[in-house]
């Protein structure tokens, strides 16, 4: 039964050497190894997190871009629409103005034509009057050459005056 009988000397050496082994391994091997492993795991998980965050950010930015493009499109459309409206308005206004102007011009023209007409008529009247006077003068001159006729004329004239 020697096999199952613990030996004191071996126990002593085993406890001494295993304690030293424990101390040295813990201090110089396990602590640095476990620390390095933990650090590496931490850095890996941190990097993974950062990558995920970056991905999210990218997606967000992409989404933002799309939104901005859409907004720009809308803006463009509304601007175009506004411009069109403005253009139409301007054209309409111009047309209106032109109409009014035209009317005014026509009116003025008409007035001036009227004036001219009146002026011409007056002139014609005056010329007719002058001409009449000339003619009358001429006639009178001719008539007065003949005594009898002059006398008669004067008589006629006197008669007319008396009647007046």
């Amino acid at each position, binding site marked *: 039964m020697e096999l199952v009988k613990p030996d004191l000397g071996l126990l002593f050496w085993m406890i001494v050497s295993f304690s030293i*082994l424990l101390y040295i391994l813990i201090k110089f091997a396990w602590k640095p190894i476990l620390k390095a492993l933990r650090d590496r795991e931490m850095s890996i998980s941190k990097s993974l997190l950062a990558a995920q965050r970056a991905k999210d950010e990218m997606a967000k930015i992409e989404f933002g871009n799309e939104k901005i493009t859409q907004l720009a499109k809308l803006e463009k459309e509304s601007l175009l629409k506004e411009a069109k409206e403005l253009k139409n308005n301007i054209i309409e206004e111009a047309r209106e103005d032109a109409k009014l102007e035209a009317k005014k011009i026509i009116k003025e023209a008409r007035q001036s034509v009227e004036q001219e007409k009146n002026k011409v008529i007056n002139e014609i009247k005056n010329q007719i009057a002058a001409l009449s006077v000339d003619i009358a003068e001429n006639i009178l001159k001719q008539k007065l050459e003949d005594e009898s006729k002059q006398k008669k004329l004067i008589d006629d004239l006197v008669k007319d005056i008396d009647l007046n």
Partner: protein
Amino acid sequence: MYKILLNITFVIAILIFNQENIFANDNPAEKDPEHPQEHNEEHEKEGFNPGDFIFDHIRDSYGWHLYSYKGHHVAIPLPVILYSKTKGFISFWSFKLDHGHTYHGFKIAHEGDYKNKIIEVNSHGEFVARPLDISITKNVTAILFSCIFLIFIFVSVANSYKKREGLPPKGLQSLFEPLILFIRDDVARSSIGEKHYERFTPFLLTIFFFILLNNLLGLVPLFPGGANVTGNITVTMALALFTFFITTITGNKNYWSHIFNTPGVPWWLKLPLPLIPFIELFGVFIKPFVLMIRLFANISAGHIIVLGFFSLIFIFGKMSPGLGMAVSPVSVLFAIFMSILEILVAFIQAYVFTILSAIYFGMASEEDH
């Protein structure tokens, strides 16, 4: 599967133990201390004895036997350190005691309670006392060798971790990293829990690699392997004592209250006769005891079986050399098969010892919930 293996090995181990006992009982003359030399000669004449052959291989010894050539034993001498009440401290090389020689009144006993141990004898060769024996035996040498080996390996691994910070593992580092991570994550963290596992991981790593290395070295028949370190009850006892003391020292209030005032048990099982507390307290000692026995039995049994297969060659060879030759390929095949199984057992036993220690630590540091 390994349970079946364990059973088989146990049965065979018991058979061999019994054989030893039967042999001892069959020779009443052996108990006669006055004729040790005679008996030894008788023993030699008997020829091959598988029981002694196996025990000589698995027991601790004062020198490190390398090989025998034409009856001449070649061994590495190791220092013997003794303290006796009459002679004080004394130290000499182990070869001085070879072949039953007596040196300074010390000799290796061949029978009795101190068989194969150094005893102090008087001038007539009669037993006087067993001195305090702290010799550097074969197993102590193997333990020191494996300690130095482990320190060398893991300190260099730790240095490469420092040197290659943030880089993937390389060389030895990548060989051991999966094992270290396995012990940390699947043994320590899963058995002890997230909160306390970091305290115990270094110890668990140390016992795992110590047991694994010595299990594997025990399978190598050449120096510096071949010492049966983890199959020695003293070594497994020391390891179990470490686990026991760490469990007891780190045990919190909850752990002790589970032992002395087990919750969920009717009061009459605790008072007036503290039945459950007694069983629980007994369990505290049983757990490390079982750790000690399991590792010792598994590793010793594996060695005994392999040596048993080799013994067959000599047993049959003694009957007739031809028969021995015929049996040897079968024996060698079986021994190879067993050795491969033993490699598996080496890993399993190192793992089992570590995970059970981790579970005990987990119990000791478990919080009340």
